């Protein structure tokens, strides 16, 4: 029965000292879908991501991946199973070059990551693939640039390329367009669309035009609980959604509030 879903959560709960951040969430993500998780600030979206990737341990509930219970696995093991996440706050290795950022991801599959006696040049054989990935996100000319020096939009593109280097089966993207100008947003939409070929994507996204363009299915979260679920038409027509989400936020887009800036990725 659960075979058609790549990822499923059953009565997932996360409490922080009595405060319920995630409240009995049942998610069902279909194979090959781009699935959006939306909801107002503080709804618990990032916390759900943290639970799915075990950056936080659920208080109660179950997580199933391809029918297998992965609730007890550790973060690194979950990543190796093919569930790879990005972070709300751009997550790069700032003092490595763009190419090295991607190479670290590729290296994980090489089996030489404990080889402290090997020459660093042994990693050069991965460069070809790194360059391809960089090219796919339009960063070819920045291959040898230290990542701190990249503009914000490019850092996010690099992050996406790094995530894709893992060949994930299920991609978890936490607000890939946050803080971007409209030009960058269009680029990211295209990148995500391309990345989603042959994979499943679960993404948190505030920009509703992005959601409407990309997503097959939408789950709305409010105060930790699932408010409703459906495709874009159904969800956007639901008056409760307008009330908690669109009503509170006008256009559906938003700028970074101070609280958000301070919020840690994990």
């Amino acid at each position: 029965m659960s075979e058609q879903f790549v990822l499923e959560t059953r009565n997932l709960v996360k409490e922080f000292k009595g405060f319920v951040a995630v409240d009995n969430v049942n998610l069902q993500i279909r194979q090959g879908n781009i699935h959006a998780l939306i909801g107002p600030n503080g709804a618990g979206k990032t916390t759900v991501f943290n639970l799915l990737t075990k950056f936080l341990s659920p208080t109660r509930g179950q997580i199933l991946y391809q029918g297998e219970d992965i609730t007890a696995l550790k973060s690194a093991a979950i990543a190796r199973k093919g569930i790879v996440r990005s972070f709300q706050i751009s997550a790069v290795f700032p003092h490595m070059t763009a190419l090295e950022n991607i190479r670290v991801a590729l290296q994980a599959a090489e089996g030489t990551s404990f080889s402290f006696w090997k020459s660093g040049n042994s990693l050069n054989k991965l460069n070809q693939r790194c360059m391809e990935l960089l090219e796919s996100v339009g960063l070819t000319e920045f291959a040898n640039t230290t990542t701190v020096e990249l503009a914000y939009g490019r850092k996010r593109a690099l992050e996406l390329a790094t995530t894709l280097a893992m060949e994930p089966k299920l991609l978890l993207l936490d607000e890939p367009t946050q803080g971007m100008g409209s030009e960058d947003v269009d680029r990211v939409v295209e990148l995500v669309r391309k990345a989603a070929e042959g994979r499943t994507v679960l993404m948190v996204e505030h920009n509703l035009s992005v959601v409407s363009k990309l997503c097959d299915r939408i789950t709305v979260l409010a105060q930790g609980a699932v408010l409703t679920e459906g495709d874009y038409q159904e969800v956007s027509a639901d008056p409760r959604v307008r009330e908690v989400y669109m009503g509170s936020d006008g256009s559906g887009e938003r700028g970074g509030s101070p609280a958000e800036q301070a919020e840690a990725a994990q």
Partner: protein
Amino acid sequence: MMSQPINSADVHKAMLEQQKSQDRRKMLLNGALLLLLLAAPFALYPVFLMKILCFALFAVAFNLLFGFTGLLSFGHAAFLASGAYTTGYLLSNYSGLTTEMGIIAGTLVATALGLVFALLSIRRQGIYFAMVTLALAQLVYFFFVQSEFTGGEDGLHGIPRGELFGVIDLSDNMNMYYFVLTVFIACYLLVQRIVSSPYGQVLKAIKQNEPRAVSLGYNVDRYKILAFVISAGLTGLAGSLKSVVFQLASLNDAHWHMSGEVILMTLVGGLGTLLGPVIGSTFVVNVEYQLSQGPLRDWVDPILGGIFVLTVLAFRSGIVGEIQKFMRKNLG
């Protein structure tokens, strides 16, 4: 150049060129350092130079953990002392042992102790990690104070230098110096290799963004434990060598002052640079020596403390780091 279309292969080629020229520069620097150290005992007192080399090795080992992995241990004195005591005790009591066996034994004991420390502390973050390592090192200190074999407050004196491989007489200071130098160079090259190895890349990643490294599937604790153990082992080797050079192992080596001093040396020289700890320990050992000869001999600690504060406040990159910054700014 900017207006031409960008070709992936060209970018890559330029990058490899740059890598090569960096490797060449590294080799040149290594060669210059080697020549300097080979010639040094003809100009300077070998025992003093050996002191510098032992501390330099200590700092290089410490920097592998602090500078390259991002873990600040405040308990490295425990490894220095366990190496020194083990070697000192064995060489003093078992005349059949050649010197290098005593040193290897000291290194192994420190490595094992490092594994114990690492397993107990690695899950802690930041200041808690430093506190756990300090607490464990204090336990080790009291163990050494209480134990018979360490000679308690007196320490172990007159440790025989013996003969290397049973043939080379180490009571000769020149022989001893070149032995210490060989070990030092080997360890320095090892750390240089580790830092640039595939493993070193993962350490870098962990240091720069641990959650991201985890999300890429790295079991970061294991990588940190390995770095800790290597660092502890090399620190033990520094302690073992020191006990043979000075024919002395004492509580000084185990005291938390020693854990603080190596932090000072590393920071002054340049955290996370290869040469930094070497320059830093040379600097600190010299300052200590010069001050202790003059009228300021009671002021050594406050002056070092002042240097520490100055470094942290004004020269965060340390001597080598500041020079690198300067060169980068003025050479492109």
